[in-house]
């Protein structure tokens, strides 16, 4: 039987393999090792949810703890990247981008362009996204539309352990700054992951389920909700083609449009808040480029225009559900 790993361990393995392969790869983040300046175990934490656990024993000081100063250490990662290293910096939750966004969007993302091409900034920012853990308004956002908006950044959002490993390896090897979004509700998900090293190229959407009636583009955690919806809809005789873009910048629009040319119908599922979202982005691009293929409106299924609530009842309503996705699909048939 093929080996299975959790999403979390798949990322860990990608980091371990790349750090073994390439000495210039370094990793850093709050408690990425854990236990600095304390009396007990070193490597006590390995990240707040354990993603980097055990790496310190393998790579030594190339994985580093940091003070809680995201501007300083993510900026340092950007600076080190411009000086020949390949840093993987952890922004623990993407919600914390507000204290360090400048170093990402005005610095790392713009070096190459502002400097007339004479810079490479192979920086990876690993960060947790998404709702579902009852972590409330400041620990549950998606925010990847903000990063997708910025020219110079690449944005990666894996939905399976297999993709997580392959996309992380590609992110580290890539020569542009990459925002690598890890949905915290996926960490425990198990799936087949080859032991060897492999890179999944950016800009290659994954058709995770084929179907001829409606194209459903879903991102990150939403891929699984969309698949659930597709299973339910199939019983009603509606065949969904579910597409996981895997990277939102670059976005593999070709695969999406090809599907829409076939189905004539599109639903975009995005856990972000709705305004200026990825759902809007994909809808608008498809509408501009493949209008004549559309047999009906493009439906968007997103979180509502409110912060993520704490209450379990409310959070469950906040996150796009298979039911809401199915409902949106049905309006098109």
């Amino acid at each position: 039987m093929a080996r299975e790993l959790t999403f979390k361990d798949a990322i860990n393995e990608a980091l371990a393999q790349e750090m073994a392969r390439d000495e210039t790869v370094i990793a850093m983040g709050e408690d990425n090792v854990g236990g600095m300046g304390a009396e007990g175990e070193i490597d006590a934490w390995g990240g707040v949810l354990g993603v980097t656990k055990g790496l310190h024993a393998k790579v030594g000081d190339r994985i580093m703890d940091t003070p809680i100063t995201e501007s300083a250490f993510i900026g340092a990662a950007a600076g080190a990247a411009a000086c020949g290293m390949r840093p993987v910096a952890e922004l623990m939750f993407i919600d914390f981008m507000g204290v360090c966004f400048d170093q990402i969007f005005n610095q790392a993302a713009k070096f190459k362009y502002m400097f007339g091409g004479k810079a490479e900034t192979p920086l990876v920012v690993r960060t947790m996204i998404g709702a579902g853990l009852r972590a409330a308004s400041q620990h549950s956002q998606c925010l990847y539309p903000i990063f997708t908006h910025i020219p110079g950044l690449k944005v990666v959002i894996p939905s399976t352990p297999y993709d997580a490993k392959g996309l992380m390896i590609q992110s580290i090897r890539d020569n542009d700054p990459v925002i690598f979004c890890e949905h915290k509700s996926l960490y425990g998900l198990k799936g087949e992951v080859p032991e060897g090293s492999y890179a999944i190229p950016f800009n290659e959407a994954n058709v995770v389920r084929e179907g001829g009636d409606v194209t459903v583009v879903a991102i990150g955690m939403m891929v699984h909700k969309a698949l659930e919806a597709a299973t339910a809809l199939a019983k009603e005789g509606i065949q969904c083609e579910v597409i996981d873009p895997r990277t939102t910048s670059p976005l593999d629009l070709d695969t999406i449009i090809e599907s829409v040319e076939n189905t004539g119908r599109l639903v975009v599922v995005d856990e972000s808040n709705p305004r200026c979202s990825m759902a809007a982005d994909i809808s608008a691009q498809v509408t501009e480029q493949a209008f004549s293929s559309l047999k009906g409106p493009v439906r968007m299924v997103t979180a509502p225009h409110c912060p993520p609530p704490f209450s379990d009842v409310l959070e469950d309503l906040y996150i796009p559900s298979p039911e809401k996705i199915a409902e949106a699909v049905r309006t098109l048939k």
Partner: protein
Amino acid sequence: MSLSESKLLQAYRKMRQIRAFEDRVHDEFATGEIPGFVHLYAGEEASAVGFCMHLNDEDRIASTHRGHGHCIAKGVEINGMMSEIYGRRNGTCAGKGGSMHIADLEKGMMGANGIVGAGPPLICGAGLAAKFRKNGAVAIAFVGDGGSNQGTTLESLNLATVWNLPCIFVAENNGYAESTGSKWSVSCENIADRAAAFGMPGVVVDGHDFFAVYEVAGEAIKRAREGGGPTLIECKLNRYYGHFEGDAQTYRGVDEVKKVKESKDCLMLFSKRVTEQGLLTQAQLDAIDKEVAAEIEASVEHAKSSAKPTAADLMTDVYVSYP
């Protein structure tokens, strides 16, 4: 500073309420019924209470992710807090905030905060408002040792001096930011030493000793009220539980917490002093313990039996007005 008997009783009650609240949330969390990330303040009670005993509702505080203690000390209702932690509609924040966002502006509590270092700028604003409104109020930002490094905190120290604000910055140094030791992450001996870099007095105080905190706090608050500007105070103290519920704390030394509890627990030190000096009797303290235990028990029952929010609540209170 000498405290009246009623003040002493109040101080003890508040500290006991915090301890009992946190111990109980710890136990309840273990049952799996409390959702989300929960950070407990047990062990640090003397700091919150030592400061907040000087404050009234017009005075503002801003807290951290570890906010329960500051809330209770500032007068937030315990039933509302417990309901909030359980995600109930009658919680302080209607179930929308949870442990990390409990706030009660009417009590001058500007919120726990999920963002490390977010409080100090807000507290500069509270201080500024007090200055404009000439109401003699002060504003206090609590930050952790980890939070004391954050740029937002350091900037705020500068701004508070430049604008001469009635603000106090309290660095609660419990030795750790998550699993990271403050000896490692803070680049100088004492956090309070940073005060000089921002033109304000800096004071280190034993955060286990309510009386010491109370005194230092009183001086700084008095100066701030009188227009004398900000102060940075570092409380050295310890947290009894993990960083958050679920933390196995393998980074800590063997018996580290046990030793602290035995030698300088703030409630123990307080009880010892007031009884030895004949300020309060053990019976008085015991009575409070009993009352508080009942109060916490009731709050848990109240929370558990309270209704959760409903779909109709999802989109309310995003704005004051939005079409």
